């Protein structure tokens, strides 16, 4: 290995090839580039023009330089250049890689793998075998990695196949395995550790030290593995706790909750105080959203330990309502059940029925409206259920007020009820006081218009105040509650419907009920009498939920807390599709702690991304690029890149690369300028019917826009506006085709094929005349297009509108609605019916009528005198479907019938078309000619 600062060469003897560069230099210099081959008829005149005995043509120096560079880079690539080379491995025996592949390794897994691969590469260069020892038990569905001495390439394959496991390492077993290794000594041992203490770590370290020199590589403290404990529920909040191995400064980590499809629902933070190894935080999310959270993860720490799966205990809150569902008497608004159902339906799973029905199901909260107070028989079962952790919410009402000795209430009640603001009372309906901080309703906003008109009153007593969760403005309790056994008994001192208050129809009611439901414990999946749950989905090392591997054991429910995650029972969800129990890693492993004792004499290192980089492939890539460039240049020198010749004819060789880049820019600008010039010329030419010879064709390939301009200007062309109606457009095209044929045959106007013009996109100014069939489908032109049309008309263009509806439009007054729409926004000059002696009737043929497919009607043209354009009308409007008459097929026969005049009328239509084109091209010239006599007379005078 040859090191030059940060660059080194693994096979430096290849650099000796650089000595051959001068030879290559001379060879390249002597080889002339191949000549271009050109076939040339006038070769007779060339023969003998240049004597053969000239000095041989040399390669241009820049090409020579390029090729030398190419060869140099190739040789350097062969020498295997390395960036940031690392020193050779100590020792002489094999390299032993001890890898912690338990759950704690997962967050740093890719770095660890790369680190291991780099070590393998170094071993490969030193031609030393590799031994790989993993400390975590292998997964059930995984082949045990190859043990013993491996060739480096085998080792690399093993490393690539290695994955972190979702369970802790077992260093005791690993120590035994190391003890059984029989390898030549002294070896060099690198222990890629996860940084966590575990039983028998010391013994493992000693066994490693017995093999030879030991290097312990552990993750940086900022990357140390962390554990997320299963969260606890406190009302609406999820309390989350995380642990880290050592209290090394303040730290804040983010916890995110996602749903079963991986969408992020909640995000909270856990703060570690500087020395603490445990930190807590809360996730405060609305209940209905919280219920969708299926897992919590520490952000940026992908491991089974940093993930807590939430099972149904955190989510499902079935609510039972005593009473009858939607009775048939047709007055739901009087039913208490109706209000409760409507308030809770979106958030909880509801069961309505009598106590037996409701309690038979899984129920977390039982709502008891006044009208459905359980009878004595049922009451016992309800109380029993409540004491096991149920929440009973009772609502007051006339029946409760009337019962003297109902003791199924949190506080003792006075007999009778209290009416506020009734006809016979001086008071007014009471509002609700703000909720006190200790109340579960604390923080809810009390609507100002919530009023209680009637309530049951608590008998004053010492404990009433403690039991009160909500009060009226006058201090009397509105909600009282008492903890009974594991559960709660809650009494709302008014009714669940609107007979005693209006809170049942306020948002507050919904919020209060939700808080009460959140109070309850979740209902765990029904084990159905099973003692063990089948694995349903388990976590892999990267905390992904996957199908459990074959051989995974069921989770015993009674000893669930003592099970340690291992290959047979990985963390995950156990149960079946309907209900699962989460088995999390966090609360089944000891709290993480840093490794206490390292083997004596061990050197330490931290896992790093950076390492030596093999630059060979980059050098080869550059060489390949240069080779391609050389190929291009060679092709160019041989004249096989046609367009490059004219472009770089005058470019000096040194500017070649620059020219290649800049050429594109220059070429575009140049072409734009040419096009503009040509455009002006064309406009000038068109006003006087110029038949100048076509400009010499240019060699550069044009882009589409220029192509259009060239197409439009190299020949005189008739143009029509695209309406979007394919049929009309086809007829326009065929019509102008037919008219063009006639023009070529009879006049000196030789138009090219007609061009379709899109008023929104295309340049109008290229055309002397636009044929515009009016359709109702065509969209009104945009403002930009309007401006373009206006400019076109004001700079000498002529638009011939054809409403194609015979004389309906123009004969009886009133403009065609579509024409009006299309012309809106254009400065239309006043129009008059075409006078019978107008130039249009004598521009080529003498015409008395202007028929198209139909005859009759008149043409409307810009009123005489013409503001611009030398008195030539800019707008001509006809209605006889002219293109329809001009449209002919290949054999020269008309495509569409012409009425009433038949072919004679078609001929007249053609003559009108000829006149129209002549008018567009020659303006009023013919008018002047007709007045020649007058002019002559005037001149003579």
């Amino acid at each position, binding site marked *: 290995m040859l090191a030059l600062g940060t660059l080194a060469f693994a096979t430096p003897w290849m650099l000796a090839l650089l000595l051959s560069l001068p030879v290559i230099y001379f060879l390249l210099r002597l080889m002339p580039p191949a000549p271009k*081959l*050109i076939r040339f*008829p006038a070769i007779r005149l060339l023969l003998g*023009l*240049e004597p053969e005995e*000239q000095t041989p043509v040399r390669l241009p120096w820049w090409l020579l330089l390029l090729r030398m560079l190419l060869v140099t880079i190739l040789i350097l690539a062969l020498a295997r250049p390395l960036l940031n080379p690392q020193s050779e491995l100590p020792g002489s025996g094999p390299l032993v890689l001890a890898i912690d592949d338990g759950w704690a390794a997962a967050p740093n897994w890719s770095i660890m793998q790369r680190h291991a691969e780099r070590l393998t590469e170094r071993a490969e260069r030193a031609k030393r075998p590799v031994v790989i020892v993993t400390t975590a038990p292998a997964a059930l569905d995984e082949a045990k990695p190859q043990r013993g001495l491996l060739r480096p390439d085998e080792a690399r394959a093993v490393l690539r196949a290695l994955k972190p496991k979702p369970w802790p390492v077992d260093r005791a077993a690993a120590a035994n395995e190391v003890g059984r290794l029989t390898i030549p000594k002294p070896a060099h041992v690198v222990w890629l550790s996860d940084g966590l203490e575990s039983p028998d770590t010391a013994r493992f370290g000693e066994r490693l030290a017995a093999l030879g020199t030991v290097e312990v590589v552990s993750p940086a403290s900022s990357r140390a593995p962390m554990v997320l404990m299963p969260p606890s529920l406190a009302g609406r909040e999820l309390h989350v706790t995380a642990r880290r191995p050592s209290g090394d400064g303040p730290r804040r980590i983010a916890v995110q909750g996602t749903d079963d499809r991986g969408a992020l629902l909640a995000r909270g933070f856990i703060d570690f105080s500087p020395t603490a190894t445990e930190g807590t935080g809360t996730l405060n999310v609305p209940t209905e959203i919280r219920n969708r959270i299926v897992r919590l993860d520490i952000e940026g720490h992908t491991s089974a330990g940093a993930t807590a799966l939430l099972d149904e205990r955190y989510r499902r809150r079935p609510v039972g309502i005593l009473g009858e569902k939607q009775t048939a008497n047709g007055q739901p608004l009087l039913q208490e059940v109706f209000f409760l159902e409507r308030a809770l339906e979106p958030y909880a799973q509801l069961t309505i029925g009598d106590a037996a029905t409701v309690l038979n199901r899984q129920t977390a909260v039982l709502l008891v409206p006044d009208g459905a107070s359980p009878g004595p028989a049922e009451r016992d079962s309800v109380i029993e259920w409540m004491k096991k952790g149920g929440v009973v919410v009772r609502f007051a009402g006339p029946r409760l007020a009337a019962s003297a000795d109902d003791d199924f209430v949190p506080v003792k009640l006075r007999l009778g009820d209290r009416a506020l603001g009734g006809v016979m009372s001086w008071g007014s309906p009471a509002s609700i006081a703000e909720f006190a901080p200790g109340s579960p309703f604390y923080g809810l906003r009390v609507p100002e218009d919530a009023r209680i008109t009637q309530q049951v009153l608590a008998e004053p007593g010492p404990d009433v105040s403690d039991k009160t969760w909500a009060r009226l403005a006058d201090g009397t309790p509105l909600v009282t509650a008492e903890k009974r056994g594991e559960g709660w008994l809650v009494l709302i001192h008014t009714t669940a419907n609107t007979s005693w208050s209006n809170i049942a129809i306020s948002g507050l009611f919904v919020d209060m009920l939700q808080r009460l439901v959140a109070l309850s414990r979740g209902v765990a999946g029904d084990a159905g009498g099973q003692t063990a749950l089948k694995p349903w989905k388990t976590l892999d090392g990267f905390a992904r939920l996957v199908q459990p591997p074959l051989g995974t054991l069921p989770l015993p429910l009674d000893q669930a807390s003592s099970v340690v995650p291992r290959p047979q029972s990985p963390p995950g969800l156990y149960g079946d599709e309907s209900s699962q129990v989460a088995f999390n890693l966090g609360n089944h492993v000891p709290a993480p702690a840093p490794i206490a004792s390292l083997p004596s004499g061990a050197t330490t290192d931290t896992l790093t991304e950076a390492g030596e980089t093999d630059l060979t492939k980059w050098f080869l890539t550059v060489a390949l690029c240069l080779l391609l460039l050389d190929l291009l240049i060679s092709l160019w020198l041989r004249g096989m890149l046609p367009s490059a010749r004219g472009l770089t004819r005058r470019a000096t060789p040194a500017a070649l690369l620059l020219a290649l880049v800049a050429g594109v820019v220059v070429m575009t600008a140049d072409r734009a300028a040419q096009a503009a010039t040509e455009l002006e010329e064309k406009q000038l030419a068109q006003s006087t019917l110029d038949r100048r*010879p076509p400009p010499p064709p240019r*060699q550069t390939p044009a882009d589409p826009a220029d192509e259009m301009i060239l197409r439009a200007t190299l020949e005189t062309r008739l143009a029509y506006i695209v309406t979007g109606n394919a049929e009309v457009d086809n007829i326009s095209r065929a019509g102008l085709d037919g008219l063009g044929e006639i023009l070529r045959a009879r006049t000196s106007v030789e138009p090219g094929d007609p061009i379709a013009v899109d008023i929104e996109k295309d340049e109008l100014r290229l055309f002397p005349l636009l044929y515009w069939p009016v359709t109702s489908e065509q969209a009104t032109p945009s403002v930009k297009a309007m401006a373009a049309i206006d400019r076109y008309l004001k700079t000498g263009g002529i638009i011939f509108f054809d409403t194609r509806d015979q004389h309906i439009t123009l004969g009886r007054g009133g403009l065609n609605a579509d024409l009006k729409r299309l012309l809106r926004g254009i400065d239309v000059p006043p129009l008059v019916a075409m006078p019978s002696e107008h130039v249009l009737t004598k521009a080529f043929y003498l015409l008395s009528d202007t028929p198209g497919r139909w005859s009759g009607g008149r043409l409307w043209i810009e009123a005489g005198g013409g503001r611009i354009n030398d008195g030539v009308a800019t707008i001509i409007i006809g209605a006889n479907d002219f293109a329809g008459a001009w449209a002919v097929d290949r054999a020269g026969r008309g495509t569409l019938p012409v009425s009433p005049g038949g072919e004679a009328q078609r001929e007249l239509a053609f003559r009108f078309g000829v006149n129209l084109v002549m008018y567009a091209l020659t303006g009023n010239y013919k008018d002047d000619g007709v007045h020649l006599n007058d002019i002559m007379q005037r001149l003579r005078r």
Partner: protein
Amino acid sequence: MVRPDEPTALRQANILAGALPPLLVAAQRVASTVLQGVHGRRRVGQGDAFWQFRQYRQGDSINRIDWRQSAKGRAVYVRETEWEAAASVWLWRDGSPSMAFTSGRGVPLKRERAEVILLALATLLVDAGERVALLGGDRPITGHAAPRRLAEGIATDAMVRPHDSLPPLLPLPSHGHLVMIGDLLDPLAKIEEIVRGYASQGVRGHLLQVLDPAEEDLPYDGHVRFSGLEKEGDHLIRRVEAVREAYGGRLRAQKDGLAQLASSVGWTWRAHRTDRPPETALLSLYIAMADVGARPVRWGA
């Protein structure tokens, strides 16, 4: 840069199918443009000009009786036209492979251009009442079908030695016209032999040299291997730009030689570049023919 020659069979098929050959269409278009330019020109050599009336004799065709004149008197008159042999024009174009050359987009093959001019000229001549024929082909004919016949003749190679760069020396009647259209790049001596041969038969001739712009300008650069189109072999030139001057000199010498040769025998010589419109060449050729017709011919020894 060299277009493959269009298969003769395909062109024959086109003609046999009855469609107007595009060549002929182009030629007619060119001809009609030029004709408009020379509109009103005095026509030469009509064969149907009125000469005299004479009395009807036995054996005259009834068709020839001029009824109007006869109605004026008692005798029956026959209208006699001036007997004048229409000039016959033999047309020839270079069909050698070197004519199948174009230097780039938009520039037609030299041969294509030569044929267009040939047919357009034929159209004009026929219009003026002359007889036209391909050199070495059928007898001179007139009438509006003549250009079409010529087009067919060209397409079916009905010329003598249709692929040579110079025409053979054939016996032609004196006072005939010969039009040679080609690149005329052969050695001057060979051209002179042919030209003088025809001139000595009393034939008036017109040379039209059709050259591609690349042949005029030699617009190449650098190291180039030139390869002839008629098996002249290759020629390697290291720096074309260095020989451009010399090439131009040689080309000028060739042209000057042709011009001198033509004037020495009373013929005309015109040059034409294929990137220019054919109308100009046609017009100048046509007018030159008229001039030749008007001028007393003094052809050299």
